[in-house]
């Protein structure tokens, strides 16, 4: 009975953390989509799916998830220096300033709500580290420690992160007029089998192996703040 309760708690925590209703400011991020939609480089559901594919394989799976996984393992063994190292490595790997700032802001937003929801000493430590500038509190790293505090298994944390990322972007795409609510569900369904591959890719990499290659999206992110009209932070 206790085992069933524990599994149920973990599943419910998984749903709570990956739900777009969970307040962490993700609805203000478009990850470059707004710029690309504005310039006409993304116009159709297929364009959007291609954009997701590139982001997942050439950025999220090859850097964000790697840092997340290392931070989770460090969190499990209470190796606080290694959590910090995952954060610093990801910061160094994230070359575009607006992206670093957005990662930091959404990490702080997540941490603020998570500390209230799942009181945990490591979350308090992370908040202190950010406060004194020892840690950037990038979103994937905070997500890892929050996931551990909420009692999630590593595979569930990775899935929760990817699910939140993909559904958040679908929401942004709908608001930008790139696709409608029905097509958004089809994109989610189409991309789902790929998430496992993205996770496998991340699992094989060390912090030193992290890489990204998304030049078009990087340029779009850099130009975002110069758009005449903006709905999103990125």
């Amino acid at each position, binding site marked *: 009975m206790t085992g069933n309760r524990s599994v149920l708690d973990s599943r419910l925590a998984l749903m709570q953390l990956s739900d777009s209703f969970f307040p962490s400011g993700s609805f203000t991020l478009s990850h470059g989509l707004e710029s690309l939609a504005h310039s006409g480089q993304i116009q159709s559901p297929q364009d959007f799916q291609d954009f997701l594919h590139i982001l997942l394989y050439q950025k999220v799976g090859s850097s964000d998830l790697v840092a997340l996984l290392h931070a989770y393992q460090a969190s499990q063994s209470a190796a606080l220096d290694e959590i910090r190292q995952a954060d610093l490595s990801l910061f160094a790997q994230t070359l575009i300033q607006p992206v670093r700032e957005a990662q930091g802001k959404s990490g*702080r937003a997540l941490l603020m709500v998570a500390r209230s929801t799942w009181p945990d000493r490591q979350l308090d430590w992370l908040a202190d580290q950010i406060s004194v500038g020892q840690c950037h509190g990038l979103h994937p790293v905070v997500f890892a420690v929050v996931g551990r505090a909420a009692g999630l298994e590593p595979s569930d944390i990775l899935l929760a992160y990817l699910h939140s990322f993909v559904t958040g972007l679908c929401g*942004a795409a709908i608001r930008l007029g790139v696709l409608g609510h029905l097509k958004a569900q089809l994109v989610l369904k189409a991309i789902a089998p790929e998430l496992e591959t993205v996770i496998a890719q991340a699992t094989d990499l060390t912090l030193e192996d992290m890489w990204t290659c998304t030049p078009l999206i990087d340029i779009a992110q850099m130009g975002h703040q110069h758009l005449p009209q*903006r709905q999103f932070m990125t």
Partner: protein
Amino acid sequence: MTDDIQSAARVGIGGPVGSGKTALLEGLVPRLMQQGIEVAVVTNDLLTQEDADRLRRKGFLPSERIVGVETGSCPHTAIREDPTMNLLAVQDLERLIPQLDLVFIESGGDNLASTFSYDLVDTYIFVIDVGAGDDIPRKNGPGFMQADLVVINKVDIAPYVGADLAVIRREVAARRREKPVAYTNCKTGEGLDQVVYFISETVLFQTSQTAVKVI
């Protein structure tokens, strides 16, 4: 993160597009500053940072005291379901300006249903204008009904838009009962002392010497 930092009072300003939220701020901020209140503003524009830029151009607040937050086309989410980005903006202001007394959070223009989370603000003001019609109070919008103070703005244009102020006053009193209402013309400053009084009394816990009680 900011547990050791003094919290400033937080006042939300919501209401439909064009009702006069930014004009209200332009009237309130100088009046509060004259009383020695340290003020900052967080704006939530639907697009760009138009309202933040408008306030900066006015020049009555140093630009670092005006922060714009993008809301991903979801102004109501940013002040209610997920106000985290606004909270971060307030925390950053509190960290930057430790002597801060008061932060206004101006919502992006929304509809009559927009309400603020009390996890974000201590109190909030809902602004409507008579140009939207004298039947607005009858619609019982949650923003209008639940706000701690309703501001009926642009009272000067009532005769030109076919709005009957007497009808508005009657409907407001019937629906909001004892909850306060201020009638303003933000362009001339008419009625703004009542709003200052509300803020002073409600969140600053002081009563202005010159202010007029809200009717």
